[in-house]
């Protein structure tokens, strides 16, 4: 297979590099998928820290009963922005970053299909993130309405709310463009011989995710546009006084919102499906069933949205339908978990940091799936709705699921990206501290929820004090641990043992056929896959 050495001998036969800007303008004008992937990852890490600080404000306030540090209004703005920033600013861009770096390398393409649009979809993100943060400094602050932006509260908030709506619009445009790029790249730019069913599973999961994004992000854009119209243009989509219905917003929002949780989870499945076979030194068990299971999850995600709304007064028949449909999702998800475990079975396992994070993902994501199954039951959910049980559930699938998988992915591909091996000892320390502090933070929240502590409230009854104190200690530990991650990554970029083209002996795929670090231009002549 051919790989073109890029940067080093630019100027000979690489005419498009003659006017390549340097310094800051290089990053503004770049159309290279590797540059853009790196920018996505750095942006998402920056947003992760911003959203993390907000989470720590929340946990500091909840350390003790009573009001300590912040006003209730500000507390509400923190929960809202924490959710929006983590979902749209941190996790989604992180996986788009992986997609940009890895998909062309995995399918043997020279770059993404629309390189300029790729640049644009990234550079929409910083203004959107800035808008979200700036909304805090508007008169009346940001919108303290929860990341779901439910009316009637969201139609009443100050100008900070408009900032958030525009930020969501921009983030939506960015992710739609990114997804169009990914679908086109995967469908049209695969190397000869790379059939769809030969693609690495990461590409498959991103293909499915990208279709989900294109299908539901516009619906969210429509929903927030309706809020904007209700706020400023005298419409009454959700204003009951004008004949609208606030419950309608919840339906439109969760039509987007439920596929959105799979938009976050499915690329994480993809990353884990690359790592587990590599460190088990076995091919992935049940490749085809993984593809079908992932597709089934994506399709089912469109018909279960109202399980977020059991307490809105749905008819019993509706509640039953959404309950059974939701439980149905456990089947393809169970297939996936089974396949990962079956890949481990009798594998020649080794436990480097990527593998540790994948195993942490496997165990904790499954736990989060079980608490999701508990919440899918209407009769139980009516009791647990809007309690800390729900908070614990979705942090198990978002943090231990998506975030752990992203950490695993970073460690897995960092040698390819930087050309250096990362510090394995520190990376393992990062994993164990993350694992312990994550569970200290969130496991106790199950108990708080079962005991009835409501979420999004800055104060609580004294009987919840001990568990909240434990949770807050865990949260600060988890937050500080992520600075260790930053240190490991920077250390790896600066230097370290030289990484081989294929640093993991069990790894498979085209990305390991190019040298480490991956040259600026790869696969300008497509490789041939047998």
């Amino acid at each position, binding site marked *: 297979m051919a790989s073109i050495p890029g940067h080093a001998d630019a100027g000979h036969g690489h005419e498009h590099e003659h006017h390549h800007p340097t310094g800051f303008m290089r990053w503004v004008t770049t159309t290279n998928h590797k540059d853009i992937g790196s920018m996505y990852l750095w942006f998402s890490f920056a947003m992760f820290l911003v959203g993390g600080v907000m989470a720590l404000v929340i946990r500091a306030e909840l350390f003790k009963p009573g009001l300590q540090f912040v006003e209730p209004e500000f507390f509400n703005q923190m929960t809202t922005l924490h959710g929006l920033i983590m979902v749209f600013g941190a996790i989604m861009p992180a996986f788009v970053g992986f997609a940009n770096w890895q998909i062309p390398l995995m399918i043997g393409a020279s770059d993404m*299909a*629309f390189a300029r649009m790729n640049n644009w979809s990234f550079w929409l993100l910083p203004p959107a993130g800035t808008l979200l943060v700036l909304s805090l400094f508007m008169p009346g602050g940001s919108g303290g309405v929860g990341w779901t932006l439910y009316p009637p509260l969201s139609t009443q908030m100050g100008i900070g709310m408009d900032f958030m709506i525009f930020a969501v619009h921009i983030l939506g445009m960015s992710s*739609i463009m990114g*997804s*169009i790029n990914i*679908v*086109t790249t995967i*469908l*049209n*730019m695969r190397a000869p011989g790379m059939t769809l069913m030969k693609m690495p599973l990461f590409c498959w999961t991103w293909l499915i995710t990208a279709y989900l994004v*294109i*299908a*539901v*992000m*516009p*619906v*969210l*854009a*429509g*929903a927030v546009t*309706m809020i904007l119209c209700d706020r400023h243009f005298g419409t009454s*989509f959700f204003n009951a006084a004008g004949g609208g*219905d606030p*419950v*309608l917003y919840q*339906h*439109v929002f969760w*039509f*987007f919102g439920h596929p959105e949780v799979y938009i976050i989870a499915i690329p994480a499945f993809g990353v884990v499906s690359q790592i587990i076979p590599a460190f088990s030194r076995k091919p992935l068990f049940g490749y085809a069933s993984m593809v079908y299971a992932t597709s089934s999850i994506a399709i089912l995600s469109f018909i279960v949205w109202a399980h977020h709304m059991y307490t809105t*007064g*749905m*008819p019993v028949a*509706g509640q039953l339908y959404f309950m059974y449909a939701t439980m149905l999702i456990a089947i393809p998800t169970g297939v996936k978990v089974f396949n990962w475990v079956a890949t481990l079975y009798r594998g020649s396992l080794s436990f480097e940091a990527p593998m540790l994070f994948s195993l942490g993902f496997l165990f904790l994501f499954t736990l989060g799936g079980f608490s999701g199954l508990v919440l899918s039951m209407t009769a139980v959910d009516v009791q647990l709705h809007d309690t800390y049980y729900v908070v614990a559930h979705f942090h198990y699938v978002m943090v231990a699921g998506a975030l752990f998988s992203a950490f695993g992915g970073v460690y897995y591909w960092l040698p390819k990206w930087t050309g250096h091996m990362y510090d394995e000892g520190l990376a393992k320390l990062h994993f164990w501290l993350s694992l312990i502090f994550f569970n200290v933070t969130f496991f106790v929240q199950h108990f708080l929820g079962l005991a009835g502590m409501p979420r999004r409230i800055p104060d609580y009854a004294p009987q919840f004090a001990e568990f909240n104190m434990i949770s807050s200690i865990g949260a600060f530990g988890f937050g500080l641990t992520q600075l260790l991650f930053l240190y490991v990554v920077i250390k790896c970029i600066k230097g370290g043992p030289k990484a081989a083209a294929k640093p993991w002996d069990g790894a498979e795929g085209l990305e390991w056929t190019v040298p480490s670090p991956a040259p600026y231009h790869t696969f300008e002549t497509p490789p041939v896959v047998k």
Partner: protein
Amino acid sequence: MTVLAQNSRTLQRLALMAVVMFGFGFALVPFYYRICEALGVNNLVGRADASVRNTQVDYSRSVSVEFDTNTRDLPWTFRALSNVRSIHPGELVQVDFEVRNQRGEAVTGQAIPSFSPARAAQYFHKLECFCFERQTLKAGERRVMPVVFVLDRSIPSELGTVTLSYTFFDVPAADAAAGGRRS
């Protein structure tokens, strides 16, 4: 087809999909109201109709009301258009009576009600009745006259059948009998 052309075709299709889904978000608005209407849920208008329905009617039971008609010293034929009605307590009921003057000249009469059993009288609330005033019929005239009443919800359950009886009296004769009390 070159990859570039293929890419731009895929781009167009996916962009169209995004635009369609943006429209779909708005289409959910009328769809939501339609489906609520079709399934009869969250139907604010329907609920308003239901609230107009008289909640004072006791649909759990009914009382059989019989109508009896008599004339005294009058050349009239007098009958109820329905002899017996099954009525829910609290329900607004209209019953029509027919009266015909057989004589070749105008005659004035007045109807006097009576109830059997007599204690049923306190549970009849008449809103309109031909018995409230004198009726003068021209020669050979036929007239249909309504009685509108509500049977009180507190009517005891042992009063399963009630008879409402009307008797028409000749008014000049009655006046004379009263000794010219009418001035």
